[in-house]
Each structure stands twice: as structure tokens, then as C-alpha cells.
């Protein structure tokens, strides 16, 4: 007899049933579509270039615009600046009003004037301003018989960031995405586990199964099967996401996510395992699918608390949360993305979560075994925990 390995048969069935389940396939494809679309959108907006057209009537204005365009090109930007000549000031004004040009550069009483049609564009203003300053300075210097190098000696400023490029906003967004994926997985797969348990209980097939294999084997098989599905699904999302980012050429910008993605997967698996058996307990306590909603309220509140805690907490609060099991699955990846975290910290958090997983699994398994055979109405948490 293969009673010791019966959980494998159960797990394989659990996986096969889900893989042929239309709603499961659909929701997975839907999530994939969202991932692809958001990567596409990110790449589109990230690579969007702006072409500025600046009108002028005066020869020295053209020199300023050309010089601005030159410094724009040498900065490596894909944006470009085009100078457009107008015969008269009136013609130029008309073109600006018609928004044929983005701005109009003309000499003013004590310098220059950059006119916009409605709202000013700060990057264009900066560009022209710098060019105006350098061009006028160079002209003034030449008048005074001083070379430009002498004038600007020692004035260069080099910008450097210790941690490389600052990605704090992007990191926040990735952390948010991780948090949502985890939250959706524990709710989504959790409800699936509970439904699969209550289906067997409601149809009494559990009585036939229980005469064939120890009920514990059935529980293990169910949990393992769903963890495999959850991990498979997240792996699929990551592969599609990273491949997509690579194809869009955005991987250079998102490469820093990779190291935290590894941690995220670890926290995802351990965090999900922690709560999976509790969902099986919910299923065993229910007598119909409708009972799952009310019986799972404590788990829902915990998951929601973990989600909001991980997203909104910061500083010391976030550090504390990042060690609390289940909450840590959201808070720690968030910290890993947004701040410097010592290597031992995620390891410790994972270990704490594993301990919680062991305890909750024992409790969940006990509730499951006590209630799976019970006929009649649903059991409350108070009743389930008392025995």
C-alpha cells in the first residue's frame, strides 16, 4: 500500500483539477495581461521623447537656441529642439497663439524673453535659460577680454548618488505590486483551498476518501498542491514580467528589482504556507460554500492588516512589522526595495514566519480533522478552537 505517499496522488489531482478549471485559467491569463500591459505602458511613457520648437525673429536668438540644442544633444537625451525663423514679431506671435511653436524667444529690455502660449514648460525654460546665461556670459567675457575658461574655472558641479540611481518612486511601485500579488494570492488560493475542502465535505466524498487514506494525507496533499500552484503562478508572472521588461529594453532600468524578487518569492512561499492550512480549517468548519465568507473574516482582516501595514507603515513601525509573520511577507520585501537592510534581517523574518507556519498548520490540521466529518450546520471559531 502507498498510504504514506497518498498525499502525492491528492496533490496531483488538486493541481490537475485547477489547471483544467476555466475560471482559474482565465484569472491567470487576466493577471498576465495586466502585467504585460503595465510593462508596455511603463516602457512607452519612459521612452517618450519631446520635440520642442522655439520660434525667433532675431539672429542672436537663433544662436541661443542652437547652443541649447547642442547641450541637449550632448546630454544624451532623446529630446530635440528645433529653431524656427519668423520674418516679423507679429507672425511669430500668431504662430505661438496657434501653438505651431512651443515658445517664442525674443530680446527684451534687459536680456531675453521666453513667451509661452498658455503654460510654461520647466525643462524647456531651464534649457533656454542656461543657454542664455552661457551665451551672454561668453559674449560679455569676450568684451572684457577674458576667456570663457578663465571665467568659469572651478565652477563645475558633478552630481553623484552613493546608491546609484535613485529609484525610490519605482521601488515603492514595485513593492506595492509585490504586496498586491501576495495579498491576492493568499485570498485567491486560500478561498480555492477552502472551497475544495467544503466541496468534499458537502458531497460526502470525504467519507469515501477517509476510508482509503488517513485524513492527514488528504490535507497535506491539498496544501502541497495549492502551494505548487501558487508558486507556479508567481513564477509564470515573474518570467513573463521580466521577459517583457527585457524585450522592451527596460531591464537596465529594472535590473535592481531582481535581487529583491528572489526574496519576495521566498517570503511569498513561506507566508502563503503559513496561512494555507488555516484556509483548509475554514473549509472544514463550513457546511456550504456560503459559510466560507463569514468564517474567513479573521483571515481576511489579518491579510488586509498585513497589506495596509506593509504599504503605509514607515520607519521603525515598518521595521517592527517586517518581522511579524505574514505581515513580514509584505513589509520585508518593501523594506528590501526601499532601504538598506542587513542580510540577517530577511533571514530572521523568514525563520519567524516558518515557526508561525508550523504552529498554525498544527492548529489548522486539528480543526480540519475535528470538523471535516461533521454533518449539519457550520461550526463557529469559538467551537472549533475549544475542542
Amino acid at each position, binding site marked *: *500500500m*502507498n*498510504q504514506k505517499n*497518498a498525499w502525492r*496522488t*491528492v496533490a496531483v*489531482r488538486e493541481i490537475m*483539477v485547477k489547471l483544467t478549471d476555466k475560471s482559474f485559467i482565465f484569472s491567470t491569463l487576466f493577471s498576465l495581461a495586466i502585467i504585460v500591459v503595465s510593462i508596455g505602458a511603463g516602457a512607452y511613457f519612459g521612452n517618450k521623447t519631446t520635440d520642442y520648437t522655439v520660434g525667433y525673429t532675431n539672429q542672436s536668438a537663433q544662436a541661443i537656441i542652437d547652443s541649447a540644442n547642442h547641450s541637449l544633444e550632448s546630454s544624451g537625451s532623446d529630446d530635440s529642439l528645433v529653431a524656427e525663423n519668423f520674418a516679423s514679431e507679429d507672425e511669430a506671435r500668431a504662430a505661438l497663439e496657434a501653438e505651431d511653436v512651443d515658445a517664442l524667444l525674443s530680446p527684451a529690455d534687459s536680456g531675453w524673453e521666453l513667451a509661452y502660449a498658455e503654460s510654461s514648460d520647466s525643462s524647456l525654460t531651464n534649457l533656454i535659460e542656461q543657454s542664455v546665461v552661457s551665451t551672454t556670459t561668453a559674449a560679455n567675457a569676450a568684451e572684457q577680454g577674458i576667456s570663457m575658461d578663465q571665467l568659469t574655472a572651478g565652477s563645475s558641479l558633478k552630481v553623484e548618488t552613493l546608491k546609484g540611481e535613485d529609484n525610490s518612486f519605482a521601488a515603492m511601485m514595485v513593492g506595492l505590486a509585490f504586496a498586491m500579488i501576495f495579498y491576492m494570492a493568499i485570498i485567491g488560493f486560500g478561498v480555492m483551498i477552502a472551497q475544495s475542502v467544503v*466541496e*468534499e465535505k458537502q*458531497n*460526502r*466524498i*470525504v*467519507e*469515501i*476518501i*477517509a*476510508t*482509503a*487514506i*488517513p485524513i492527514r494525507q488528504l490535507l497535506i496533499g491539498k496544501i502541497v498542491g495549492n502551494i505548487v500552484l501558487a508558486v507556479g503562478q508567481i513564477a509564470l508572472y515573474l518570467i513573463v514580467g521580466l521577459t517583457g521588461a527585457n524585450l522592451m529594453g527596460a531591464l537596465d532600468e529594472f535590473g535592481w528589482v531582481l535581487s529583491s524578487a528572489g526574496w519576495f518569492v521566498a517570503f511569498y512561499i513561506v507566508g502563503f504556507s503559513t496561512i494555507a492550512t488555516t484556509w483548509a480549517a475554514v473549509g472544514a468548519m463550513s457546511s456550504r460554500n456560503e459559510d466560507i465568507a463569514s468564517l474567513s473574516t479573521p483571515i481576511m482582516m489579518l491579510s488586509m492588516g498585513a497589506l495596509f501595514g506593509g504599504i503605509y507603515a514607515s520607519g521603525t513601525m515598518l521595521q517592527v512589522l517586517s518581522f511579524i509573520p505574514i505581515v513580514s511577507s509584505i513589509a520585508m520585501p518593501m523594506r528590501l526595495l526601499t532601504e538598506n537592510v542587513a542580510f540577517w534581517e530577511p533571514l530572521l523574518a523568514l525563520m519567524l514566519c516558518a515557526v508561525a507556519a508550523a504552529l498554525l498548520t498544527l492548529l489548522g490540521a486539528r480543526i480540519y480533522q475535528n470538523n471535516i*466529518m461533521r454533518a449539519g450546520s457550520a461550526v463557529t471559531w469559538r467551537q472549533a478552537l475549544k475542542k
Partner: protein
Amino acid sequence: MLVEQGSIEVCNLTKTYGSKTAVSNASFTVEPGAMTGFLGANGAGKTTTMRMMMGLLEPTSGEVLYGGRPLNLADRVSFGYMPEERGLYPKQPILNQLIYLGQLRGMTATTAKSRASDLLAELGLGDRLKDKLESLSLGNQQRVQIVASILHRPQALILDEPFSGLDPRAVDTMVDMLHSLMREGVPVLFSSHQLDLVDRLCDRVVILHRGEVKATGGAEELRESGPVRFRYRSEQDAAWLREVPGTEVVDLAGPNALLEISDRTQTAAVRQQILTRGLEHGMTEFFRELPTLGDIYRGATQQ
């Protein structure tokens, strides 16, 4: 195929829920190669007893023996069980779930598949292997349920209301299947509240009433052990029978009567007397009337 010979002995099984006693001190034997009918009204405790036998419920006290030793998990794996409320996956193809159940009992997927296909074909479901259970009629779902319980060539069968919802033809097919298993020495216990079915099919009977076993034994023995009754028919008024010592007239309708011998040991003498005098009163028939299972059941559950 050689099947381990073994009878199932239920010894003093008791199940109480708080102050409520569901089954009280039940003892009976399910013998190999025989069909034992488990009779009782709704709520008599049949299902509770069967669930205790299958290890699904922990008995408050008492035990179940198989071949003389306590019944263990390995034995139960080799048993076939059909729960009262039918249990299979409604949204799955019937062949798939039968293979799964076979695998759980240690069959290979290939063996389970060929055996399940054969049995389903035998029950007329050969062309519906890939259909979902819920798309089948109730009677056909019941057939699939039967296949689930005998798929692994069980060494014993415990069936809770197996015939409810089956049309007469399906009952016959199922009885044939059970008989072929019984010929291999498999003990079969099935519960029912359909007296006529039990009367027709069972070699042995267990009558449960309010959690207590009221009668158990071979169907013939039980009938013999009942009151000794004779049916009398004649061409003249039969009122004179009232005066025959040692008898009691249970029912009298003109020339016909039903008599009961008060003292079983005096049967021969009383019979002799009635036969002699009956011939003078135009007697046409005089024969022993055995009680039906229904009479026994009503007698046992009257208290």
C-alpha cells in the same frame, strides 16, 4: 481470486453525543459470502453504526473485529463503502474521479482505469466516461457511486442505503454484481428501510431500533423463531377452533382462521387434534404460516 476469509464482528458498539445515545451496545456479525440486511427506521442509528465500522466515527465504547482481531486501517482500505449521502465530485468527469479513488486505494492508474471502464460499461454507462457526474441522471449517478465502492475488488462491503433511488432493473444489475463478489467470500452489509428488498435479497438480518439491536440472525431462523402460526381454511364456520386447548385464534373470518400455538412444544399434539376435527368441519387447507420479515420487524420494534 482468493479473498481473505473473514467475518466482521460488531461488539458492543456504543455512540453517545452528550446525553443522547445514538447507538447502544450494538452487537452482530456480518458473515463472509452472505448478504446481511441492516433494517431500521430513519434515525435508528444505522448510519452511525456503519460510520463507526468504517472508522469515520470514534465509538464511545465497543469495538469492531475482522477475522477475530481488531479492524485496522489497512483492512478498511480493502473494504468498499458507500456513504448514505452520496459522495462524489459533481463537476468532474466520472472516469477521472473513479481512477483517483482507485489510486487512493493503492491501484495503479492503468488498472483503475480499465476496471472502472469495464464496470461502467456493465452498468450501461460505457459511452459517458468523460461526462461530468452532475450531467447524469440521479439513477446513473448512483451507478457511478456503486462502481466507486466495488472498483478495488473489496474484501468486504458496507453500503448505506445502496438501493434507494434505483429503478428495478438497476437493482437487479447491482444485486448480480454483489452476488459475484459474495461468491468470492465477501461479506456484505447493507442498510435499508425497504422491507421487501431486504426480504428478497438477504440471507441474514439485523434489526436496529432506537439505537438497539432488536433481532439478528439468518432470515429463515428469525422466521422460524417467531410465533408458530397455522392458516386454516374450510367450507364451514370455523368458530369451533376457539375451543381447542393450547391454541389462540389470532384472526377469524367465517370459515377461515389464523391460529397461534401457545406452547411451541405442544405443536405436534395440537396440530393432530385440529387435523382430526377439521376433517369433520370441511377443512380444505391447513398449513404453517411463517411470518414475513415485515412482521418480525414490526414485532421487534413495537416497544
